[in-house]
Every structure is written in C-alpha cells, then in structure tokens.
C-alpha cells in the first residue's frame, strides 16, 4: 500500500534528519580540544630541560610575564644552547635543520582554550602563580601532554551527585582556584565578562 510505503519513507527521512540535527548540533558544541600526548615534530623532553637542568620556564616561554600568551622560544634561542649542547643527537639535528632553513618549527598545540575565553598569562604570573599549577608536573614529562577542557563525563558525574572536581583548564577548575584566592584575600576576578568577551 502506498500509504504504508509513504509512512516507511517518512520514517527513513525523519531518522536521517534527526541524525543530521544531532550531528550538526554536536559539531557546533565548541569544546576545547583535548590533546593527548602529542606527536611533535621534534621530540622535546621537558623533563630534561626543567627536571634535569632546572631551567626556568620563562627562559623559553619568555612572553608569559608581559603578554596574554606564554610564547614559544624562537628557533634562534633553541640554537643558542644547542649549537654546542647535544648537537650530535638526532632530534637536535632536526632542530638545526629548521634553523638552517630559516623555518619555524610546527609545534602541535597541547593546551588550548576555546576561542571565547580570554586567558592572560601575564596576570597570573603577576600573581606569582607557578606554571605547574595549570600545566601539571612539566618537570617529569618526557612528552608534554595534557587532557584539558570540559568533558561530558565530568558533568554526568556531577549529575549523579558526585563531585569529581573540574578537569584542568575547564571553567569549574579556574573558578575553584579564583574562589580560593579571593577567600585568601587576593583579588581574583569572578566576573563573567573578564574572561568571556
């Protein structure tokens, strides 16, 4: 019967459209990319630089104290040490190749906040925050990686009454710290538009 066929066809169309709605909706949910330990163009061990040689974070990420961004060291700065230090290692040879070609190193981004979030490193360095507070125990990481940003599972845990705490670099996690700082007499803003504008 044509009617039954029509109803069947309708079912298929509806299903397709619902799937489309679901997918297109989900794809618009702007969540921060959760980067797993990443494959970097050069295997850079933070553990050696920070852990073994006790280098200051801001020696390389020198923009942190004056800019919104922490910044990455220029290839020139890397080469400042690595012209001599460990120059024979294969990874350092890769670095030297970038330097010789005058090309920037295409590092893969690990820590990323959504576009609608304004996070100034400067203000946090001014407040004497340690880098590790947000970025984890960098001195132990051979490959830098982080799982950041909000996760659905986290909200689900809250929904069933658990309080797992915000995952790093998620809003709940920022807020927790800001509230603690305010309770300790510091001035950490809690105004929405300070970070979302």
């Amino acid at each position, binding site marked *: 019967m*044509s009617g039954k066929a029509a*109803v069947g066809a309708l079912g298929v169309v509806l299903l397709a459209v*619902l799937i489309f*709605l679901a997918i*297109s*909706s989900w794809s*618009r949910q702007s969540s921060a990319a959760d980067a797993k330990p990443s494959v970097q163009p050069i295997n850079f061990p933070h553990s050696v630089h920070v852990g073994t040689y006790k280098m200051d974070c801001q020696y390389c990420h020198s923009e942190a104290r004056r800019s919104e961004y922490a910044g990455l060291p220029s290839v020139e700065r890397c080469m400042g040490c690595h012209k001599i230090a460990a120059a024979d290692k294969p990874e350092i040879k890769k670095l030297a190749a970038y330097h010789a070609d005058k090309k920037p190193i295409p590092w893969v981004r690990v820590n990323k906040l959504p576009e609608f979030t304004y996070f100034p490193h400067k203000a946090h360095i001014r407040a004497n925050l340690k880098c590790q507070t947000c970025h984890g125990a960098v001195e132990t990481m051979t490959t830098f990686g982080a799982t950041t940003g909000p996760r659905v599972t986290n*909200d689900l845990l809250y929904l069933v*009454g658990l309080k797992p705490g*915000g995952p790093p670099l998620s809003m709940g996690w920022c807020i927790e710290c800001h509230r603690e700082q305010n309770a300790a007499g510091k001035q950490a803003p809690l105004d929405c538009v300070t970070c979302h504008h």
Partner: protein
Amino acid sequence: MSDSRTTSSPTFADVNRDVLRTLNPPGNLYFAWMCVVALGLAGFFLAWAGQVWWGMGMAGKRVPQMWAMYITTFVFWIGIGHAGTLISAILYLFRARWRTSIYRAAEAMTIFAVMTAGLFPLIHAGRMWFAYYLLPYPNQRTLWPNFRSPLVWDVFAISTYLSISTVFFIVGLVPDIAALRDASTGWRRRIFSMLALGWEGSDTQWRHYRRAYGLLASLATPLVLSVHSVVSWDFAMALVPGWHSTLFAPFFVDGAIFSGFAMVLVLVLPMRHFFGLHAYIQDKHLDAMGKLILVTGLVLTYFYICEIFTSLYSGEHIEKASLFWKVTQTYAWALWTMYFCNCVAPLILFWRKARTSPFVLYVVSILVLIGMWFERFNIIVPSLGHDFYPYTWGIYYPSPTDTAIVLGSFAFFLLLFLGFIKLMPSLSIVEVKETIPPPMREGPHAH
C-alpha cells in the same frame, strides 16, 4: 447523523466491543491522512534541519520581531493543551458526567499538543544544541539557570504540566489497558500485559486508584490554571507595549480553554462519525461543549474590551500608539480576523440547534482555532513591530522555513493523535461504563 443509535442503552460488553473496534486495522482513508502527515512532517524536519545548518535567519525573524510565528504557534499549542486536563481534572472534581466520553481523547490531545508545543522552544532557540543550559543540572562550572526568567518558569511549568498530564493520562489508561490485554492475544497481549502493570480491578486496587485519581485531579486543577498564566507572563513580564499587562494571566487561561475545546470538537466529531460512536458521544455532549465555547468566547470578548480600554484610559502615549497601529495599519487584517473568529463566530452557539449540529460546531471550532492562532500572532508580531523605539519599527514577513515548520507542527500533532487512536482506546472503557446503568438482575433502577 441520526440519533437512532443512541436510543437503546449499550451494555458493558457493548462498550468493550465498541471501543476495541476502534483499534481495528485502519482503512485507506487513514493511510491517506497519514500520507498528508508524512508530507507535512518531511517539510517540517527539512525546514528545521536547514535552519539549524544555515542559522535562525532562515526563519523570517528580524529586529524588532525577534519572536514571531514560532512563539505564536508555541502558545497556540500550549493553549490547545489546556482542554484535556481541564476536562479530566476540573470537570471530574465538579462531577460533570458528560466529560466521560470525550476525556480520553481530550487528554491525549493535551499531551500531544504540549509535546508539539515543547518542540518550539527548541526550534526557536538560536543555538538549540545548548538548550539544556535551561535545565537546572549540576555541572562543574556551577552554573545554574536564572530563576528570575519567565522562560525558566516556562521550563518548569511546561515540564510539570506534561509530566502530570501524562501521569494522569496513564493512570486513567491502566484499567483500560487491562481490558485490552484481556481481549487480545499474542504479542499484543504481552505488550499490553506489561503496560497494564498487572491491573486486575480488585477492590484494593480500586480504592487506592480512586483516591489517587481524585488527588491527581485536585493537583492538576491549579496546575492547568497556572501553566497558561506562566506562559502569559513571558509577555506580561516584558516591557513591550501590548504585553506589559496584569490582565494577561486570566486572559490567556480563558483563551486556552476556548481554543482547547474547539480543538477537542475538531478531533472528536470526526471520530464519532468514522467510528460510529454516536452512542457514547451524544448530542448532549456536543451541546455542553458548545455552551463552554460560547461562554469562554464571551469572556474572551470581555478581555479584549478590557485590553483596549486600559490602553486608551492609561493615557500612555506609547501604548496608545501601539494599539492604534495594530488596529489600523499593516497587521490590521490579522486583528480583525481574530475579532471575527473569536468574538462574532461563536455567537451562533446561542442557538441550540447550532450547538447540536456537528457541521456548525465544526465550522465554528475551526474558526475559533484560526482566531486563537491569530490572537497570539497579534500579541507578538504587531506589538513588537511598533514598540518603544521608532528607529527599528518594522514589518515581519514569514519565510518558507517558518511556514513549513508551523504547518509541520500540525502534522506532528496529527501523527501522534492518529497513531494514538489506533493503538489505545480513545474512549475510556471504565468511565463510559460508569455512565450507563450497571447490569441489575432486578432491572435497572435510578443511579
């Protein structure tokens, strides 16, 4: 439609048979209707998908009419959703026995209308994929909805209304499903057994059931009145001239009942005709419904007069300008259509013959539905089009997207309703039995 079939009173077994007959495999006419529904729904979902993909601009909204036909249709369906629970709860408490033959259909209509209405806030939201932000759920950001917003009141009112109406509906259905279970075989029987929860009609079950039903009715009664009041506050709490009025709550509730009864008639009259239910849905039922439509229509007319009067008497320049614009300018046709359909058309029901004529009732009901849709349209679109700020005054033009979605919502409603009448008893077996004299060996006596 003759009254001949109503002369001899049916027996309990007749009731079971007649009601279960409505669940027989449907005919061609039914499938023809389903095809229409399918078309409407396809348009509905495609338009919606387009709107999600390309943006809300696909719908004809603009500044200043940031709300338009979606909210119009939302309020329309919420209004429709009032008759069911009103009939089943308020009339139950008032022991109006004529409700019994229509209340199941009305309740189903209520739930489906509210479900249809419930789609519109989603359709209407610019980012419907974040619509869950409106729900108070615990989250790591410790963000909660703003309980000062009438939209959050809506969320609570409508979800409560849908829940309670559904519960009420299901509770009413349980004994009927048990009857269905006992009259069916095979897989249907298994499904009905599960749905019937093992209902047997024992005295213990009945006594708790009756008490619970009464309590639910008394909870649902204020709920019915509150829901449309809350919906009306979406407007009354806003500043827009033509919205900001304390009149709105009773005005909306009355309008909702008015349109709800019209919709009940629109659905029940064909049912009566096609299923041959003249024995149960009798002329006296139609008469009662007609009277209710008449009364609510007159009350509505009173509210219209009040609205105009307050606007004129206030001496408020902007209010008056808004009213004057509505009555005489671009959208005047919509306003006068509304006045005709809601104030003039029902007056024919003063005449008893009209109240018992299915044809007249049907026509009046359709007109009332049109009028009530336009009432919401007139509240939203022209009021916003000529509000405080002359710079942004403007005219709203519906786009193919809005139109497809509004028409598609009727298809969505019909899909649910047509599905329901073939899956569930659309007359309450139990309550219909209550209205016919119980079987007595000594012969019937006064009940």
